[in-house]
């Protein structure tokens, strides 16, 4: 904003104050999920004229959804699973044990950490029975999600 040619005639301190005030107002409105009438009332109390209020509200409405998504993504939560990859292997021998003949799955859960931006994936192996157990439990979770949405 300080580099904008249209605004170069205004005292930079005043500009900063305006920017901070506008930002605070927008963020508070977004946080409270305020509707247009609430915002208008608030701005009227601040003695802004009708035209400016209307301009502000129109701009706000345009960007409201993006603002809500941004605000909703701030905050701590456990690491988030984004994807899964799997590999099916058939073991035939190792140097300790020959003739093993066992299928096994190698599963990688791609995980995103919102704080550090690192991607510490979770890797593990499992047998077919264990994978069936895992999938069974995930399906239970999905079923109870479905039931919850129908309440």
């Amino acid at each position, binding site marked *: 904003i300080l580099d904008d040619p249209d605004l170069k005639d205004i005292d930079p301190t005043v500009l900063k104050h305006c920017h901070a005030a506008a930002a605070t107002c927008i963020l508070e409105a*977004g*946080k*409270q*999920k305020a509707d247009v009438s609430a915002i208008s009332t608030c701005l009227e109390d601040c003695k802004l004229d009708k035209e400016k209020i209307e301009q502000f509200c129109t701009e706000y409405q345009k960007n409201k959804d993006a603002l*809500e998504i941004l*605000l*909703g993504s*701030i*905050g701590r*939560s*456990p*690491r*988030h*699973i*984004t*994807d*899964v*990859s*799997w590999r*099916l292997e*058939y073991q*035939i021998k*190792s140097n*300790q*044990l*020959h*003739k*093993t*003949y066992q*299928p096994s*799955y*190698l*599963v990688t*859960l791609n*995980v995103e950490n919102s704080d550090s931006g690192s991607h510490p994936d*979770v*890797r*593990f*192996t*499992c047998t*077919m029975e*264990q*994978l*069936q*157990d*895992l*999938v069974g*439990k*995930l*399906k*239970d*979770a*999905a079923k*109870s*999600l479905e039931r*919850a*949405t129908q309440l």
Partner: protein
Amino acid sequence: KLNVGVDTVQHGVEGLTYLLTESSKLMISEIDFQDSIHVLGFSDELNKLLLQLYMDNRKEIRSILGELTPKLPSYHSLEWRLDVQLASRSLRQQIKPAVTIKLHLNQNEDQTAQVLQTDPSTLLHLIQQLEQALGEMKTNHCRRIVRNMK
């Protein structure tokens, strides 16, 4: 009590250990085992005893040897919980469903538990992908390989 030197006993034990672990590792048949020890020139009775010892213990020996192979953490169990986030410090009046998962894994005799989270659509995607993985063992390709590798 055995009236032989310590060294002899030690060699005896080491010899037996080697014999049993190698035989179990290779999973040799009874006949092959008998042929192998025949070369050592022991009495028939001793040979029979050794064979019995091999047959009785090879399963357990094999499972212990199985623990020695290089391993990644393995699955133990999973717990899940359904959460709905209603508000946070930065945004009020939300409805954000999430599934929180506690994944228990075994790594070299330690159990670790990881807490992870996912959203409903990713959950369905995970289920679909893993069901595909399970289905792979039943395909003709895998069946053929399993048949031919015995």
